[in-house]
């Protein structure tokens, strides 16, 4: 006999009513997808039980790209069409890529766009599209595992990612059909995975040693607010370097010449890696190296020997640790906890040295490969509304200052780094020539004073300023940064009201048209109808709005008069009816109409929120706070 299940009041809804949103760690070497199921956050494996998806994409002349292990396995046979470490190219311009230089074995083509494109057998691909292919694979995996289409995700980015890199990541998600609930800083995600956000305050170091990169971040937590105090690292240091050090030692021991062939080198690296991993659990491991021609070398690697080989590399990671401590102005003793991220932190020697450096045992009970994805999944679960956690609040800060170019190639900072976001700031500028009718707004990110030392994010023109004497015009430029750290800028001439605004589609980013074009192409590729896609998009949007407005009515309907309520309900009915049809345009109209109808309601709900926020505090009478020490 089946028993009815009764859930406790106020608890999460029954599993089948839960909405799923995933956390994605889009890494340089590997990527992962994780989700909260039955209250537990876990990474999702592929059909073969593998959790890590190598961030490698191979493009073929025909058919879908191959992503992950299968692409990685043939990387050396088809290097030009097999793209690895594309994260290094995200948000980068053609010039940046040139500076990265010969370390990239790919062929670049220069199109109209400032964004580099890689030539592959399947045609040209931008880093955003390549990342989108990785995200699609993860989305597909999640959809299959969870048995329901997954559309919402929290995606992690390095704390130091600038606006262009963040925007590129968000664009990639859009191309992959994912709506980004939040871009989350990787170290913050790791801290969430360990539940550190539950602590009232503290300073935490997140030590992230991956396959090819090392990042160190210091986070300050104050009642749910995570501030990245300082971040640093070494973009060319990781577990792969340890494999090389061990392989070179094997070569010396086995008498293999320096000019070992490509194939032999790969085999050696594989053996070195296996030995390194074995030594995590044991003190010594046997080596058996095939020298070719029927000859075999046998030896042994002890943990002590390996430690002496990798110590110089680990020490290299400690230099940036010292630097960030100094940048943040704190001593090692003030660090309340250390979180380990990245596969290479499994090595006992790494743990010992990190522990020694910070003077405390690092947190390491969550798999360091998975910890970032798990933290992202926890945050996704909160954002999608499965968990009503009133205490949880995650505020990020912008990692780099934003400013505008002024006379003489100098930068005027408008928003300094480490400002809590979202933030909006305005600054007034004026013309420098008599009769000047246009103004070039050049947006930059960075700490230096000279334009040439900062990163150019965008340029746009405010035209139609009426001719005035130099210095008479008042042009107010407003920067707005959202919770993901993404910027939009608008400019307005105050005396005439002439306005110009852009969402900063950065110098190295994609325009909305380009994204639309790519979406069309990728859909055509999948032999789906463009109209069907548009309809589907409008339906998803309609469902989201219907649910949101109904939820709001349930919660705060009392804030409305009968007339106001009736007008919103008629909007709801209209949208519901349009949603049932198959005309994308009429759904869009109904969405817009309902959105308009809820304007007053939204404002009242916000006012009510503010009233509730301050309800615990006495509305001070004048003078009530007199006599207390000022800040």
């Amino acid at each position: 006999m089946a028993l009815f299940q009764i859930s406790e009041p106020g608890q999460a809804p029954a599993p089948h009513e839960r909405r799923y949103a995933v956390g994605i760690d889009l890494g340089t070497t590997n990527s992962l997808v994780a989700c909260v199921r039955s209250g537990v956050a876990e990474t999702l494996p592929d059909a073969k039980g593998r959790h890590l998806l190598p961030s490698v994409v191979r493009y073929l002349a025909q058919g879908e790209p191959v992503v992950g292990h299968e692409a990685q396995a043939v990387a050396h046979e088809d290097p030009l069409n097999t793209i690895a470490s594309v994260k290094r190219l995200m948000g980068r311009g053609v010039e940046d890529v040139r500076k990265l230089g010969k370390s990239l074995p790919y062929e670049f083509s220069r199109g109209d766009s400032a964004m580099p494109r890689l030539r592959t057998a399947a045609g040209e691909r931008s880093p955003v599209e390549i990342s989108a292919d990785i995200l699609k694979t993860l989305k597909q995996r999640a959809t299959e595992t969870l048995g329901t289409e997954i559309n919402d995700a929290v995606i992690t980015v390095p704390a130091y990612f600038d606006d262009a890199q963040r925007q590129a990541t968000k664009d990639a998600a859009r191309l992959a059909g994912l709506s980004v609930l939040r871009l989350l800083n990787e170290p913050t995600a790791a801290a969430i995975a360990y539940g550190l956000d539950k602590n009232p305050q503290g300073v935490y170091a997140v030590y992230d040693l991956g396959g090819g990169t090392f990042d160190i971040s210091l986070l300050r937590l104050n009642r749910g607010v995570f501030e990245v105090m300082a971040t640093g690292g070494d973009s060319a240091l990781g577990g792969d370097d340890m494999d090389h050090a061990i392989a070179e030692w094997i070569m010396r021991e086995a008498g293999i010449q320096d000019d070992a062939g490509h194939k032999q080198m790969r085999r050696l690296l594989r053996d070195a890696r296996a030995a390194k991993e074995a030594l995590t659990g044991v003190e010594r491991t046997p080596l058996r190296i095939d020298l070719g021609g029927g000859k075999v070398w046998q030896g042994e690697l002890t943990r002590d020997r390996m430690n002496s080989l990798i110590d110089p590399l680990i020490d290299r990671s400690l230099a940036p640790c010292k630097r960030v401590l100094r940048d943040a102005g704190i001593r090692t003793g003030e660090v309340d906890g250390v979180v380990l991220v990245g596969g290479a932190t499994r090595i006992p020697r790494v743990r010992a040295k990190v522990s020694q450096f910070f003077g405390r045992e690092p947190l390491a009970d969550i798999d360091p490969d998975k910890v970032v994805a798990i933290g992202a999944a926890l945050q996704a679960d909160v954002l999608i509304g499965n968990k009503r956690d009133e205490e949880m609040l995650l505020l990020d800060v912008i990692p780099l200052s934003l400013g505008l170019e002024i006379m003489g190639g100098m930068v005027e900072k408008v928003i300094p780094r480490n400002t809590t976001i979202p933030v909006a700031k305005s600054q007034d500028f004026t013309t420098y020539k008599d009769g000047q009718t246009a103004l070039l707004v050049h947006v930059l990110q960075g700490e230096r004073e000279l334009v040439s030392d900062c990163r150019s994010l965008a340029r746009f023109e405010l035209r139609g300023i009426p001719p005035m004497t130099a210095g008479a015009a008042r042009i107010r430029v407003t920067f707005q940064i959202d919770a993901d750290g993404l910027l939009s800028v608008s400019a307005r001439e105050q005396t005439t009201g002439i306005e110009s605004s852009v969402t900063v589609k950065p110098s190295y980013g994609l325009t909305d048209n380009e994204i639309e074009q790519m979406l069309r192409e990728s859909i055509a590729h999948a032999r789906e109808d463009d109209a069907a896609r548009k309809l589907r998009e409008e339906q998803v949007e309609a469902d989201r709005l219907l649910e949101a407005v109904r939820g709001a009515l349930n919660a705060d309907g009392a804030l409305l008069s009968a007339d106001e309520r009736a007008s919103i309900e008629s909007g709801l009915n209209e949208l519901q009816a349009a949603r049932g049809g198959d005309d994308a345009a009429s759904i869009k109209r109904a969405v817009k109409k309902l959105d308009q109808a809820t304007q007053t309601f939204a404002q009242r709900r916000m006012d009510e929120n503010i009233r509730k926020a301050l309800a615990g505090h006495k509305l001070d009478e004048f003078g009530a706070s007199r006599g207390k020490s000022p800040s």
Partner: protein
Amino acid sequence: MRAAPGKNHFELFGLPVAFDIDAGDLASRYRELQRRVHPDKFANASDQERRLSLQMTAQVNEAFQTLKDPARRGRYLLSLRGVDIDAETDTAMDPAFLMEQMEWREGLEELRQADNPRKRLVELANRLEQGMQDKIARFRQAIAGDGPEATARARNIAREMQFLEKLRREIDDLEEELL
């Protein structure tokens, strides 16, 4: 673009328009407001509410940054009285303060040449902090009065504080250089 039109920073936080503020109370009001208005609380809401939440959070952040810092708070109070302290730069500064300025500047210059700049830097930063506290105390007195004379006095002190803030940034920059 204001999400709470007509409310000044003090009103947004439910505080009286006054110079003295309890830092702990301000921070706790800030967190409560953020918990209610932050975009993360509206990830599933309509576009209308999400836009509003973004603007509101930005306004709350801006208000908090302004109110928690005494020098910025002072300037903001003056702006509520219709006084823009950057407006007329030709107003004569107190000669005593001009002397003081020169001394600060000389101190900073000497420090660059000194044998032990880092130690001297800390001393200078401490002296500056003391100077700032003195100005805050004088500003508090001045702004408590509400006649035009009191306001003018407050404005002059606010300008002096602005100078000290600039000096503080230069000391910070130098500190970074010396590291």
